[in-house]
C-alpha cells in the first residue's frame, strides 16, 4: 500500500505550472507556488516528496529558496529538481544542492523521469 507522493511546483508562470502538472504521471498530489516566499511557506506546510523549482521567482530567487531548503532540518533531504530558462550552468546548480537540473524548454518525459527517479530514491 503506497501513499501518494506530493510534488511542490514553484514557477511564476501559471501556464508552465500547468505544463509540469500535465507532464507528470497521475497519482501525484500537487502543491503550487508562484513566488519564492510562497514556495518556502508551502514546503513547510505540505512537507513535499519532491520540489520542482524555477530559478527566476518573484520576491525570493530560486537559488535563495534552494539554499533555505537545504538549511532547514526538516526539508534538507527533499530532492529539488531545478528547472530554468536562465543561463546557470548545470554544475553551479548541482553544487548548490539540487538533485537534478532541467532546462526550459523541456521534454515532458524528461521531467517525468526526473521526478520518478527523485521520488523512488
Amino acid at each position, binding site marked *: 500500500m503506497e501513499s501518494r507522493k506530493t510534488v511542490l511546483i514553484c514557477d511564476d508562470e501559471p501556464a508552465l505550472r500547468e*505544463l509540469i502538472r500535465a507532464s507528470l504521471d497521475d497519482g501525484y498530489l500537487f502543491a503550487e507556488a508562484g513566488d519564492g516566499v510562497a514556495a518556502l511557506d508551502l514546503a513547510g506546510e505540505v512537507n513535499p516528496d519532491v520540489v520542482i523549482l524555477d530559478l527566476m*521567482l*518573484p520576491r525570493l530567487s530560486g537559488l535563495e529558496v534552494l539554499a533555505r531548503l537545504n538549511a532547514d532540518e526538516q526539508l534538507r533531504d527533499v530532492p529539488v529538481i531545478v528547472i530554468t530558462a*536562465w*543561463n546557470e550552468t548545470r554544475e553551479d546548480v548541482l553544487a548548490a544542492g539540487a538533485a537534478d537540473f532541467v532546462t526550459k*524548454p523541456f*521534454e*515532458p518525459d524528461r521531467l517525468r523521469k526526473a521526478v520518478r527517479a527523485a521520488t523512488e530514491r
Partner: protein
Amino acid sequence: MSRPPVSLQTRLLAASVVLAVLVIGVFVALVLAASAARTATNEEARSKNVTTSALQLEKLVLDLETGLRGYVLTGNADFLQPYTSAKELLGDARRDLLARTEDEPGQQKRAVAINRSIIQYMGDYARPVLLIAKDNLGAAKDATQNEGTFRIDQLQRDFKNFIAAENELAASHKRSADTKSRHAIELGVAGSVASTILILLFGLYLSRSIARPVREAADGASLLAAGDLSLRLSERGPGEVGELTRSFNEMAGRLGETRAELEEQNAQLRESERLKSDLVNTVSHELRTPLSGVLGFTKLLLTRDFDSETRRHYLGIIDAQARRLAELIDDFLDMRRIEEGRFERAQELVDMVTLLREEAQLYSLQSPKHRLAVEVGPRPLPVMGNPDRLRQVIGNLISNAIKYSPQGGIVEISAEAENGSVRVEIRDEGMGIPLSQQPQIFTKFFRGDAAASGISGTGLGLAVSRDIVESHGGRIGFTSAEGEGTTFFVELPGANGRGGEQGNSPEQS
C-alpha cells in the same frame, strides 16, 4: 609697458649684422695697420734717398772746392780735375735734390736755399777765382782762404741742417706711422676680442633661447607620445620659440580633451555592450519561457491522449504562449526601429475610449487575480495617430501594472479631455518604483529589480512606449510611491472631432 614681441628671425638677423659689421671693422683696422706699416717703410726709403742725394751734392760741392784750392795752391791744372768732374755732375745733382723734396715744403725751401747758394758759389766765387788764378795765383789763393772757406762752411752748415731736418722728418713720419699702426693693431685686437665675446654670447643666446626650448619641446613631445598629456612647457621663449611652446601646450591640451572624450565614449560603448549582453540573456530567458509552454504542450498532445476539453484547453495555452512570443519579437524589432530612428506614423483618427476598453478586456482575461476598472465618460476622445502603436503603448502600461502588482488588486484605467489634450491614466496598487530607480525607468533594457524578482519583460516596453508617444507629439510620465503603487499617464494632442470627423476645432491652436 609692453613692446610688441620682436620675432626671432629679426633678432637673429640683427645679431648677424652686428657681428658682420664688427668683423669687417676688424679687417679694415688690420688693413689700415698694414698700410701704415708700408707707408712708414716707403717714407724711410724716400728719406734715405733724399739724404743720399743731399750727401752727393755736398760731396760734389766739396770736390769743387778741393779742385779749386789744389789748382790755386799749386798752379798745376791737373789738380783742377775734381772741380771739372764735379761741375759736370752738379746740375743733375741739384735738380735731383729739388725733385726729391717737392712733397716736403720745409725741405724744399732748404733745398732751394742750398741750390741758390751753390749757384752763387759758382757764379760769384768759383768762376771769378778761376779767372783770377790765371793771372794771379796769390790773389786767388787769398780768395779761397777767405771767401771759399766762408762759403763752404756756410754750405756745409746748410747741408747739415738739411740732413738733420730730413732725419727729423723721417723720424716724425716713422713715429706717426708707428702710432697709426699701433692704433690699428689695438683696434683689430679689441675688435677680435669683442667679436669673439659677441659670438660666444650669440651662441649662448641661441642655446638658451632656442636650443634649450626646442630640446624641452622635443622631450615634451616624447612624453606626450608616451601618454603623459598633463605636461606643459614654459611659454617665455622669444618670438617663434614662444609660439612653438604655446602651440605645443595648446596641442597637449587638445589631446587631453580628446582623450577624455574618447575615454568617455569608450565607457559609453562598454555600457552599451553590457546592456546588449544583458539583452541577450534577457531575450534567451524571455523567449524560452513561452517556448517551453508551446513545445511542452505540443509534445503532450502528440504523445498522450486527452479528452477534447483538455485538448482545447492546452491548445488555448499554446496559442497564448505563441502570441507572447510574437509580442516579444515585436518588442525587439521595435527596439531596433528605435535604435535606427525609424517609426512609421500612420495618421488616423483613433478613439482612445474604445482603445482602452478593448485593451482592458484583453488583459483581464490574462490575469484573473486583477480587476481592471475602466473609468471613461460616454463621449469618444479622438487623437490622430497610428492605432497599432497607440494600442501597443496602452497594452504595455496595463501589462506593467499587472506584472508589478503580483499580489493582484485593482488596475484603474481612466481617460479624459484636458486642455485640448487627451490624458490617459493607468493606476495600480502594486509594489511601486523605488525613488532611486525612477529616473531610469525609460532607459532601454533597464528593469530595476524586476529580473531578481522574477518579473518577466525585456526592459524595452517603456522605452518603446515613450518613443511612440513622443512621435505622436505627446508625453508620458508617472508618479509612484514604493509599496503603494504606480500611476502612469499618457497625454496626446486631442483631435477633438465628433465621431469620425478629422481636423482641429477652432479653439485649438
